[in-house]
């Protein structure tokens, strides 16, 4: 039941509601018929009244439920509820006013109409007509009474058989239908009837018998079932012996008089009944009218609710759709309304949401495209071995690739968005580079510059190429800088050049040296005996000097050769700590006045190295340091090992530090170049060879003069992981570069 009410209230059970209304209408029509045509429909009236009350009650419940739901929605501020309520109210008011007017007037006319049925003159006329009929019939009745009296006289003294015969004779003479002679106590003495089927005569009522016995004859008119009347006359008589007898005579009244009297009686009766029923009749009509009014009003209410909901539904859907769009859901489609303006609105809304959805999809696709392109570009940049940086117009770092960080030895990705000052504050090593690039940025157009820069991994030569970016949509100007670490390239070129020079010098110089030496020894051998002691000593000293100097020159040329010789490394795993201890064992007594201190870490430091070359390296470094200490006022040489993690790779670190005079600034910049030396007796090749060996092993070397005096050389070699030899990366390209150069 509740479900039905809900369904009806939501307007889903429109058919049921219409059926209910239709049924109610039929009931009310039947009721109005019952009211007006009592004879035919009167029996149904009570049932109809009950049914209509139930139906109207159901309708009222439906409407109340509707109203309750609507008010609750309104309190909850549901979209459309307020408008629905207002529209329903307006519709209901519009419907109720004319209905109420019609009802009022109908009621008035009804009262007046029923009153107008009755008329004093008609009333009196009917009464008179009835009286007239009565008078006319009275005449007849008196005649019948007289006749009955005569018959009674005639049969008073007869015995039963005589009486029966006489009664028959009288019946034949007159126009009576039955004559009965009663004896004492109602005993039938004789009877005569014109109806042969009648066996027992119709006895007079008790009251009549009582009246006649008291001496008053009775004559009365009785209506007969079908139509007309019969006159019953009962007279008292007595036999000569004084026995009481009663004679009853029945005379039918069947002529025109009886028909007219009957008609008058019926008219009078119905008129009288009508007058009597006037007030209940008015009530009944009013009730029927009120029920019709109620039906109309309730139907109007229901229709008002329904119509209001129907009208508001597209608006509510539109409101919900708008909210959905506001919340970013563009797939909301409104059901297409009819061909009216609301339908047009719904279609426009649908079109709008479709367009919005398409625009959103297009934007999403565009974004995805941009993302993929960006990812593509980033991948390309990441794969690039050249470092790429972009700066905005203020010089702030915008993008960088992995190679840039790797080349500079600095994690640039955390510096994105930083201006040059902040970059320098965070990474002081970049200061020189920024200062070198700075002037180029102010000029428009492309530029190219080779920059020597001291980074964490020593001196580097960077080839920078820059270009200013156009100031267009999506690009707000700025610069793109592409740089390559050409340190190896430059060094390879230089090495190749030096190698060439060394070979030529060796060849050109070594060739005349042997004849010079031989010639000098021959001069000494031939002329020493011929000269006196004084001259002999001069010759001796002269030739000795020549031979000695030629020998020195030979050694120098050999050293050149050694430097220029291409490496033939025989790499094998070795443990650095053991190796250092073993090599320095040789120096345990040798350096007078120099104390060597080992600072070795207590963990294995495996490296892949050529033992011979590495020993040369260590000898060179130690010798260099001891000489430096002897030149100055120092006394201690520290040799340390350790592990380091530089730019994503594990390294083995070997450091040699002394407290000698240190390197002057003028030398520090290119101490590893050949023929750069501070020592009066040095060839200037010691550190150059050290550096060469380090680079042959894929390591790098760093030279510094700590502020507290002395000098420190740090060598880093790749760590050998789990005994697996790491390829000596720079070795191979060095070769190729050399061969290419």
């Amino acid at each position: 039941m509740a479900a039905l009410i809900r369904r009806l209230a939501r307007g889903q059970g429109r058919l049921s509601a219409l059926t209910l209304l239709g049924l109610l209408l039929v009931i009310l029509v039947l009721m109005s018929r019952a009211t007006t045509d009592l004879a035919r429909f009167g029996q149904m009236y009570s049932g109809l009244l009950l049914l209509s009350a139930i139906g109207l009650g159901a309708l009222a419940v439906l409407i109340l439920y509707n109203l309750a739901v609507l008010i609750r929605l309104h309190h909850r501020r549901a979209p459309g509820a307020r408008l629905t309520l207002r529209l329903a109210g307006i519709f209901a008011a519009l419907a109720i006013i004319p209905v109420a007017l019609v009802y009022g007037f109908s009621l008035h006319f009804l009262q007046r109409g029923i009153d107008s049925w009755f008329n004093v003159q008609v009333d009196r006329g009917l009464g008179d007509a009835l009286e007239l009929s009565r008078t006319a019939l009275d005449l007849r009745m008196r005649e019948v009474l007289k006749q009955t009296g005569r018959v009674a006289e005639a049969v008073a003294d007869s015995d039963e058989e005589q009486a029966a015969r006489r009664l028959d004779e009288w019946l034949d003479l007159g126009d009576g239908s039955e004559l009965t002679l009663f004896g004492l106590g109602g005993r039938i003495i004789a009877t005569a009837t014109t109806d042969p089927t009648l066996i027992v005569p119709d006895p007079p009522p008790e009251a009549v018998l009582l009246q006649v016995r008291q001496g008053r004859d009775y004559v009365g008119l009785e209506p007969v079932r079908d139509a007309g009347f019969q006159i019953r006359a009962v007279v008292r008589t007595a036999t000569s012996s004084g026995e009481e007898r009663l004679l009853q005579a029945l005379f039918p009244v069947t002529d025109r008089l009886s028909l007219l009297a009957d008609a008058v009686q019926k008219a009078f009766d119905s008129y009288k009944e009508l007058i009597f029923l006037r007030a209940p009749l008015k009530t009944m009509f009013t009730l029927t009218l009120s029920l019709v009014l109620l039906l109309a009003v309730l139907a109007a209410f229901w229709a008002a609710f329904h119509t209001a909901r129907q009208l508001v539904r597209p608006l509510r859907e539109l409101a919900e759709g708008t909210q959905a769009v506001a919340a970013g859901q563009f797939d909301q489609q409104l059901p297409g309304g009819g061909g009216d303006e609301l339908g047009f609105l719904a279609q426009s809304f649908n079109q709008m949401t479709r367009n919005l959805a398409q625009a959103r999809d297009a934007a999403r696709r565009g974004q995805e495209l941009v993302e993929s392109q960006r990812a593509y570009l980033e991948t390309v940049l990441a794969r690039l071995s050249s470092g790429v940086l972009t700066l905005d117009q203020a010089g702030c770092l915008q993008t960088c690739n992995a190679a840039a960080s790797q080349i500079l030895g600095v994690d640039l990705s955390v510096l994105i968005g930083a201006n040059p000052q902040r970059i320098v504050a965070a990474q002081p090593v970049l200061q020189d580079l920024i200062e070198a690039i700075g002037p180029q940025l102010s000029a428009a157009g492309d530029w190219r510059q080779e920059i020597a820069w001291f980074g964490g991994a020593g001196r580097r030569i960077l080839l920078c190429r820059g270009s200013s970016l156009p100031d267009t949509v999506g690009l707000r100007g700025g610069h793109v800088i592409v740089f390559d670490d050409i340190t190896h390239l430059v060094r390879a070129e230089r090495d190749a050049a030096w190698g060439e020079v060394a070979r030529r010098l060796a060849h050109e110089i070594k060739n005349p040296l042997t004849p010079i030496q031989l010639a000098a020894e021959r001069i000494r051998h031939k002329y020493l005996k011929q000269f006196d002691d004084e001259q002999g000593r001069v010759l001796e000293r002269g030739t000795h000097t020549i031979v000695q100097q030629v020998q020195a020159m030979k050694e120098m040329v050999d050293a050149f050769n050694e430097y220029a010789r291409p490496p033939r490394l025989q790499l094998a795993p070795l443990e650095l700590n053991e190796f250092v201890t073993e090599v320095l064992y040789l120096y345990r007594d040798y350096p007078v006045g120099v104390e060597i201190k080992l600072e070795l870490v207590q963990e294995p430091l495996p490296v892949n190295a050529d033992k011979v070359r590495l020993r040369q390296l260590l000898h060179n470094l130690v010798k260099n340091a001891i000489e430096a200490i002897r030149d100055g006022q120092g006394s201690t040489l520290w040799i340390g090992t350790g592990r380091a993690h530089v730019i994503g790779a594990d390294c083995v670190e070997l450091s040699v530090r002394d407290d000698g005079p240190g390197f002057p600034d003028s030398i520090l910049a290119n101490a590893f170049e050949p023929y750069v030396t501070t020592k009066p007796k040095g060839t200037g090749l010691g550190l150059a060879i050290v550096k060469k060996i380090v680079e042959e092993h894929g390591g790098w070397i760093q030279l510094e003069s700590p502020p507290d005096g002395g000098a420190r050389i740090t060598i880093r070699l790749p760590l050998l992981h789990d005994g697996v030899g790491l390829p000596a990366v720079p070795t191979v390209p060095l070769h190729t570069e050399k061969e290419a150069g």
Partner: protein
Amino acid sequence: MSADARMTARSARATRLLTLLLGLLWAIGGHAAGFEVLSAATRLEGGVYRLNARIEYRLSSAALDALQNGVPLTVDIEMEVRRRRSWLWDETVYALTQRFQLEYHTLSRQYLVSNLNSGERRAFPTQTAALEFMGRIHDFPLLDRSLLTKNERYEAALRALLDIESLPAPLRLLAYLSDDWRLTSEWRAWPL
């Protein structure tokens, strides 16, 4: 006179007054409108239960007024034979209704009583005579004995009522709502 005696006298007077009032109420009640079954009994004659009963009809003024104004009144005399059951309500095994219609014939100034079951109609010069006739049931064949099960307890019951549904429609609503028209007698039951 002591206080106790005074109290006794006062309570005696109050009791007399109360008795009088109750008596008055009973008298009014006794003459109030309504139908009443005065007596009812059956006797077995030739295997058939025959009913003899007397019913008093005291019509209300509203009903009398309607009768005088040409509205026929229909009286139902309902008869039932019920099987007594000890632990359930009684079962009605047989029901019969005798319907009488009483109307006033203006022209002849006669009261007509029609038995709607048999179609028989009789005229009475007075209303009392007509009601008397309607109220007397004489040897009415109620039920054949063979229709009843042996070793079961049966009872017969009788009541009379004014049939409101037979009134003219305009009067009906009023009749349903008004006490003046509720003229139903109590059931009078007796064992068969």
